[in-house]
């Protein structure tokens, strides 16, 4: 049995340094399932309630989510997928060609750490459901540290199972996500429908008035800032900024037969980031009503209250389907730093770090800040790849400069990254623009910097004949 598992692990081949062969390409349906599974996830149990807490109005939410998710789908389809299906190499190998191995190492370590924290938060969400039969004391919105030994034990078990699945490679992740994908959103929707009578909705016609007065009231909870339609629109567009504009999904979409597979992300956006957010917002409104605005924040018990055992299992699997591909991506990031190591060994180490991070409830309680920060941190490299691939050949600048000149640190790329983040920080500090909105001006700053810096760097040593 052990020998069989070892051979299976050794056989995992993810084409880190070579283009994915045509025999391994997958149809758009495979990505539809993966995106739907990945984005109907544990995060949805946290983000949906946040909109309620921040006092988004019902109409603002409907419109903001529609247009924000549309922009996210278009970003995957027109920014990420065309490059992914032309190059068919991982994000990390592409960065190595542009930025050089040393700068890519810095990027990969930042990226892997961010992925570990994101996956860790999802393991923690799953653990809130696993802990129900054990009367696990749940964390409150203000908690940062683990509050019991039983919490740590449950997180370790959930993390170990998640890591083993991720170790078995993309096919296993995709298969599991596909299996759970049709069922997960139905549980979200069913749970929300079943609790509507508790909010006073007894017919379809009563829903809108209750939605405006008891769920998305337009009035934030005490201590929370006021969100508008623009917050919702930009948050839903940029919450996966690292994946589309930041190009992290080059590593996933390189398996697609056609660039149009980028549109399959709509499965994740309009099922997970639309209906699941609405549904989890309804569940949270019921929780606030029965708990007299308790500060306790535990997705597992909320889902269990609304849908019984199926609800608790839904939270576990929803967390799992996010954590799995995220650990897989983090493994790829670290493997780019340690290219001679086996994929499964790297994933095992990444899974261990992720599980350790999951022990801290702060990852869940500050999820919004973290998601916004992580997208912003990685976004400039996506802008660099986009310009390097599409624009440089047209304006006489050398693409893939590090590979062409055999350099390990491309200063144009490095300075673009750091100066863009510095500019975003300055916009935040001096103009008071919230972090959710910084991605858009930041992308244009990165584009401008990268072009100007390359003109300066390549001027004295023309690379193109």
């Amino acid at each position: 049995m052990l020998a069989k598992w070892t051979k299976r692990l050794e056989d995992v081949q993810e084409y880190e340094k070579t283009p994915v062969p045509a025999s391994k390409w997958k149809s758009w349906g495979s990505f539809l399932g993966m995106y739907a599974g990945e984005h109907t996830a544990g995060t949805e149990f946290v983000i949906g309630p946040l909109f309620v807490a921040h006092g988004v109005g019902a109409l603002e939410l409907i419109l903001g989510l529609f247009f924000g998710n549309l922009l996210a789908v278009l970003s995957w389809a027109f920014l990420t997928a065309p490059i992914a299906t032309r190059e068919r190499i991982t994000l990390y190998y592409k960065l190595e060609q542009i930025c050089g191995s040393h700068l890519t190492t810095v990027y990969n370590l930042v990226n892997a750490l961010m992925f570990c924290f994101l996956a860790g938060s999802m393991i923690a969400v799953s653990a809130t459901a696993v802990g129900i039969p054990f009367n696990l004391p749940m964390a409150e919105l203000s908690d940062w540290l683990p509050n019991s030994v039983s919490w740590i034990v449950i997180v370790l078990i959930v993390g170990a199972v998640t890591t083993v699945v991720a170790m078995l490679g993309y096919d296993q992740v995709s298969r599991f996500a596909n299996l759970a994908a049709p069922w997960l959103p139905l549980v979200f929707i069913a749970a929300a429908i079943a609790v509507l009578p508790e909010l006073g909705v007894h017919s379809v016609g009563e829903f809108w008035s209750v939605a405006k007065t008891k769920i998305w009231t337009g009035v934030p909870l005490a201590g929370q800032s006021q969100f508008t339609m623009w917050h919702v629109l930009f948050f839903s567009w940029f919450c996966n900024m690292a994946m589309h504009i930041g190009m992290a999904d080059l590593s996933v979409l390189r398996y697609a037969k056609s660039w149009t597979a980028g549109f399959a992300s709509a499965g994740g956006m309009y099922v997970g980031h639309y209906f699941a957010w609405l549904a989890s917002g309804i569940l949270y409104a019921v929780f606030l009503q029965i708990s007299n605005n308790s500060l306790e924040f535990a997705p597992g018990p909320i889902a269990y209250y609304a849908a019984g055992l199926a609800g608790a299992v839904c939270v576990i699997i929803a967390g799992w389907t996010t954590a799995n591909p995220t650990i897989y991506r983090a493994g790829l990031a670290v493997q780019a730093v340690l290219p001679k190591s086996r994929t499964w060994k790297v994933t095992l180490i990444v899974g261990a770090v992720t599980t350790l991070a999951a022990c801290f409830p702060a990852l869940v309680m500050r999820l919004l800040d973290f998601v916004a920060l992580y997208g912003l941190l990685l976004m400039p490299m996506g802008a660099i790849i986009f310009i390097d691939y599409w624009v440089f050949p047209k304006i006489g600048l050398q693409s893939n400069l590090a590979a062409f000149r055999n350099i390990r640190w491309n200063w144009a790329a490095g300075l673009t990254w750091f100066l863009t983040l510095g500019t975003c920080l300055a916009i935040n500090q001096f103009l008071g623009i919230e972090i959710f909105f910084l991605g858009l001006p930041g992308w244009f700053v990165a584009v401008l910097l990268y072009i100007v810096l390359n003109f300066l760097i390549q001027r004295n040593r023309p690379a193109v004949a």
Partner: protein
Amino acid sequence: MKNVFGLIALVGLALTLVPSILVFTGSMTNAMHKWLMTLGMLLWFGGAMGYRRPERNVGG
């Protein structure tokens, strides 16, 4: 056999969603709804795994 597994999976999905609508209309209790959702979950995963197994073998 594959069709039987497919049918079981579909019944599982129906048992996941339909009872909640009956709760909403006042035709079913919450307790029954939760039991049926659990049954639906078991049928979905059992049926879907059986339905997909032959496809995986053919695809290699």
